[in-house]
């Protein structure tokens, strides 16, 4: 097989498979097909990461239709992208393989094929964002992913899902329109959309970018010193912060995750914000470059406080939630704070920590939402009251939750510990003492919100003792949850893959910027 075509296959496969799902109509058929597609995507992503990791250049480039960049659209994948794609497709494959069982309670059977079609579209969009090396392509794929996730969320069982999806639609559209403005302004000043080309032209002077004879006030001014570029960057950052659910622009996330079908929360919690984080990394480091974003604009003065606020405030809010899904959703907002914090250090260690946490948190949070799905198959309520005594009724399910929860806290041997270790040592390395202390304080808050669930499940007696027989979730579901959470244990001990890849990815991000 010709491995050169892999980058485009990664995107086009789910994109074309989505309408096919519509034609299949029968729930079981559509599901089988979707699983097949997602597993192939996983295989492609793994192969690509393998190729990238062992290639000298550390990246793959693919020219769509044979048109050379910067005129044609280029797909470019480096270690960072490869890692994100791997997580994305792995979570998609695991989620889809149990999706039919989870959907039985939540979506009527005759709509299943629509669900799978939308799901594959979302996967295609997210894969596209990561694969492409063209800024406008990012916007298009972002919209494909967003529009399909609005639809997916609106399929939730309660009518609140509709409102949550609508709120997300409004916020998400504002976010992507901001991104669109940012892209337009950047294009206006440079005349290119290719990321690598854009990065190069931004550092050139105005007269060298513009056609001869154009009347420019200050020809020796570098492009990235202009106010237009500053505005472009500001629009992009705010738009991405909305997509990323960075505090205080996170309002859409808890409602969306708490009301969506559990399959959707499982998938989105691990992927959509992570992909937005990926784009933020790209924009900040690859395109605009370290010297501009951190030296000239001073992004760290914006992001560091916001990230710390996210960690502390969202964790505190999580403590006061009564619904497990909302606890997990607010915890996600807090974990996004950790991701952004790593970015805001603008050091290689900080970036490594951020990327590793992207990987680890995706697995953890998806696994945890899958556990919630497991619980939902046996009982309707997901509040702290209704899960009382669940440790005895669903021992294996709750054990999985405990593993994931320990990961969120960052207990050693879980992958969460590794990311926290890297993050705090990155903070110490660059002399950010206060930040280090605040990060570990954030873990303390995590102890509290995780422990509220654990205590309810294991140490509180249920109100009615009628169903005290052990009755775990269906084996397939349980196995899927354990695959994801087991992976967090494995990657807590054998850290070569995430940390190794992340270190090199961080180095190349920093290298481009400096």
């Amino acid at each position, binding site marked *: 097989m010709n491995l050169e075509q892999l980058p485009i296959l990664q995107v086009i496969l789910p994109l074309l498979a989505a309408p096919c799902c519509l034609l299949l109509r029968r729930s079981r058929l559509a599901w089988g097909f979707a699983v097949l597609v997602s597993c192939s995507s996983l295989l492609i992503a793994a192969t690509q990461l393998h190729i990238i990791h062992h290639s000298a250049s550390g990246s793959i480039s693919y020219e769509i239709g044979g048109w050379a960049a910067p005129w044609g659209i280029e797909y470019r994948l480096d270690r960072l992208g490869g890692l994100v794609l791997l997580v994305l497709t792995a979570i998609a494959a695991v989620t889809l393989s149990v999706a039919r069982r989870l959907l039985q309670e939540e979506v009527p059977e005759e709509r299943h094929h629509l669900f799978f079609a939308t799901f594959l579209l979302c996967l295609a969009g997210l894969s596209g964002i990561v694969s492409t090396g063209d800024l406008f392509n990012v916007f298009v794929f972002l919209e494909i992913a967003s*529009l399909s996730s609005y639809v997916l969320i*609106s399929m939730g069982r309660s*009518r609140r899902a509709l409102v949550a999806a609508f709120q997300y639609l*409004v916020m998400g559209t504002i976010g992507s329109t901001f991104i*669109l403005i940012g892209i337009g302004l950047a294009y*206006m000043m440079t005349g290119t959309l290719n990321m690598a080309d854009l990065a190069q032209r931004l550092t050139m002077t105005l007269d060298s970018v513009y056609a001869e004879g154009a009347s420019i006030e200050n020809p020796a001014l570098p492009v990235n010193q202009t106010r237009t570029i500053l505005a472009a960057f500001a629009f992009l950052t705010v738009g991405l912060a909305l997509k990323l659910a960075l505090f205080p622009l996170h309002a859409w996330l808890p409602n969306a995750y708490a009301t969506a079908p559990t399959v959707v929360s499982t998938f989105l919690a691990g992927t959509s914000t992570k992909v937005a984080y990926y784009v933020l990394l790209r924009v900040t480091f690859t395109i605009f470059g370290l010297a501009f974003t951190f030296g000239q604009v001073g992004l760290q003065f914006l992001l560091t406080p916001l990230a710390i606020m996210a960690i502390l405030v969202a964790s505190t809010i999580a403590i006061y939630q009564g619904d497990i899904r909302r606890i997990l959703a607010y915890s996600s907002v807090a974990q996004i704070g950790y991701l952004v914090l790593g970015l805001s250090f603008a050091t290689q260690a900080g970036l490594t920590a951020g990327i590793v946490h992207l990987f680890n948190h995706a697995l953890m949070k998806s696994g945890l939402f899958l556990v919630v799905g497991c619980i939902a198959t046996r009982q309707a309520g997901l509040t702290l009251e209704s899960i009382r005594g669940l440790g005895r009724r669903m021992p294996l399910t709750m054990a999985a939750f405990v593993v994931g929860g320990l990961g969120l806290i960052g207990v050693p041997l879980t992958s969460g510990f590794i990311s926290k270790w890297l993050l705090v040592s990155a903070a110490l390395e660059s002399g950010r003492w206060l930040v280090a202390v605040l990060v570990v304080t954030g873990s303390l808050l995590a102890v509290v919100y995780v422990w509220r669930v654990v205590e309810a499940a294991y140490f509180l007696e249920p109100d009615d003792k009628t169903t005290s027989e052990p009755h775990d979730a269906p084996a397939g579901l349980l196995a899927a949850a354990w695959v994801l959470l087991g992976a967090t244990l494995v990657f807590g001990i054998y850290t070569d893959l995430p940390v190794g890849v992340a270190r090199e990815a961080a180095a190349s991000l920093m290298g481009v910027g400096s």
Partner: protein
Amino acid sequence: MGLFNYWTVIVLMMVGFYTVIARNNLIKTMIGLGIFQVSVFMLYISMGKIADGTAPIRVQPSAGHEAIYSNPLPHVLILTAIVVGVATTALGLALIIRIREAYGSIEEDEILEMDRNS
């Protein structure tokens, strides 16, 4: 008056943005969102236009002067964005219909009130 287009863009953008934030009615929110998006379409089209530029169709070299073309790429880009905008509006309106079926209202505060009480 060279920046007239851009002033229009900014005014439209603010009108749209304000409508999204300030209106309770979901339909009006969607209208605001539409205006907001349209302003960006105008931004793109404006940047492609060059004074005295023609459509990018190859003219006869014998005309004696070099033709100035408008940049076609922003138009192409914005065509995509318009499609996205249409899809967003359609989806938003579909959601509003479903919300009306489920809640019997399209006023955001009433809906949130119902959610709080249930």
